[in-house]
Structure formats: C-alpha cells, structure tokens
C-alpha cells in the first residue's frame, strides 16, 4: 500500500514536471503574448537615473515589440491624447519620454487574449497601470492591442484606448475570459 502510494506520488510529480516543461518550451499563443506584453511593460519602465546610452538602447528594445507600421492612439483623460505612427516614431517618443527624467513604472494587468483561427493574429485587452515617479495618482487605462505573428514573434500592430465608462459592447477578448 505504502509502496504504491509513493509510486503514484512520484508519477504525478513527473507528469506535472513534464507538463510544466512542455508549456515553458512550447507555450500556447496566449501564453506567449502575455509573456511578450509583460516584457514590453518592463522595457517601457525606467528609473530616474538612466544614462543616455542606456535610454537609447532601452528605447530601441521597446520599439522592437512593435510592427514597422504600428498605429497607436492613446487617450489618458486629464493627461495626454497621443497618436504614434510607425516604429521609428515609437522609438523617438520613447526616447523623448525617457529624457524627460523622473521615472515611470508600467504594468499590464488582466491581459485577456483572443487568438484568431489562423493563429497568426490576436487581440489583447488589458489594463495599463502606470506610476510616474513623484506623483501620487496612478495612471489607469484599459487598452486594446492587435498583434500579428511575424517570423515566430508576436508584434503589436495597433493600440487603442478602451473607454471603460462609455463602451457599450464588451471587447471580445474580455468576454472570452470573463470571471
């Protein structure tokens, strides 16, 4: 009895580890997109003491998450309404933001992903949480991102603001992961 118990326990642990390894090395598109967006949030964050060389390298890295012809239209009530067209524009705006100083911490929360049947495009709905160094108020904004799979990497094609309090039809990505 005891021997069988231990055999079953060891088998269960081995199966769990195999499943875990499989998901790490062969992630589902949803998991890959979530990981990619989390990396983007880290790249977009910066501290106050960043050297110009590091700022340029990090801006370059952040721009690498977007497609060449990316369109970003973001409106943060009481703060900014910005339109960015193309990856070069993303790089320049990111550099400008970083040279502004201070510091910015970005997080993407509650990332809901819906992958198209062709598995080459996807929609992500998420909540941006930003904190500017020295400011008390958080930046909170729901966003919708469209992504395309290019040479094995998920790149962002479009970013739009979702107005939580004036949006009648729930985004498909949220409803698919509604809890």
């Amino acid at each position: 009895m005891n021997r069988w118990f231990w055999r079953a326990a060891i088998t269960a642990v081995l199966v769990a580890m195999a499943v875990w390894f499989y998901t790490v090395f062969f992630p589902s598109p949803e998991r890959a997109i979530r990981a990619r967006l989390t990396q983007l949030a880290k790249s977009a964050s910066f501290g106050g003491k960043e050297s110009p060389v590091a700022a340029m390298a990090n801006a370059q890295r952040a721009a690498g998450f977007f497609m060449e012809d990316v369109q970003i239209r973001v409106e943060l009530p009481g703060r900014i309404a910005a339109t960015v067209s193309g990856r070069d524009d993303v790089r320049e705006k990111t550099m400008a933001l970083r040279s502004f100083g201070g510091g910015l911490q970005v997080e993407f929360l509650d990332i809901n992903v819906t992958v198209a049947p062709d598995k080459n495009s996807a929609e992500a709905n998420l909540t941006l949480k930003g904190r500017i160094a020295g400011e008390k108020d958080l930046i909170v904004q729901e966003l919708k991102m469209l992504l395309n799979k290019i040479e094995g990497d998920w790149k962002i094609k479009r970013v739009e603001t979702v107005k939580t309090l004036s949006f009648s039809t729930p985004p498909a990505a949220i409803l698919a992961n509604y809890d």
Partner: protein
Amino acid sequence: MATTAETERPHWVRTVLIGRRPKRTAARIVVLVVVCFVWFRFVLLPIRVQGMSMMPAYTENRVNFVNRVAYLFHEPRRGDVVAIRTSGISIMYMKRIIGLPGETVGFHAGQAVINGKILDEPYLKYNCDWELPPKLLGPDEYYFVGDNRSMPEGDHEKGVATRWRIVGKVLL
C-alpha cells in the same frame, strides 16, 4: 499485580502548534484555506481605495470590500456605490450609480438631471458647474459618476457602462 498502560503525552509546544491530532489539524487548515479563498474571491472581494474621485465618503488608502453576490436577487439601484471592472478585477473603478436603464441623464449647473428632474444627492459635499447634455441610456446601461465633483468635468472619469461591468456593491 496491577499494570498501568502509560501513554506518552506530546510536548505542550507541539500541542499548541499542531494540536493533539495533527491529521485533523491539517484537514482543518485545508478547509479554512479553501473557505477563505472562495469567500474572498467570489463573495467579498477585498479592495484598497486609491484616488480621490469618491471623496469625502471614501478616502484614499481605505480598505473595503466588494460584495459580489449583492445583485444576485435584484438589479443595481440608484445611489449604490459599485465596483466596475476594467479588463479584469485587479483594478476597478469605484463609482456611484445615478442613472438606470432607459433613463436620460445629464448635468445642468453642476446638478445631475434624471429624466428632466434634478436628482437629490445628499452625499455630495463639493459643488461643481458641470454642463452635460442629456443622454438616453440603453436597456442594459447604467450611468456612473464619482462623489467628488470639485474637479473639472473633463478630468473626472464618469459615464455609461453595461450591467456586465458591475462586479458588485461596495460593502462599507
């Protein structure tokens, strides 16, 4: 000749920490963890208030709870303070319902106007001068606004959302 069966009693520290019957203690802990998880995830969701849009009733950094089962047997009512989901429930808006489905909602001289009549809002402490044209709410739409209307109209998050966005009623 009488014999006595002397059982060795566990050390009092062990008794305090894991009880006299460790298996039962473990079972109790498992049940407690499961009950707490279900309770604080699906019934009373703990939240921390951030921002000033619901001042003075709800001040910053105050801990509160969202009652997720409040609307199981009736629909949200005017005056209820509710939590509104974004893309999930990690960050939610906390607002007061002032407009119900099918009503027209607007602002005139800083006062909320529902179906052409000024809404009595005794919970308001700060005056404003907002002017917003009436908007007709759809059959499943509610109008949400914060209590702190001292800020400019454009800076205050408010507006319409459908019923599915409402996570629950703020408890305290």
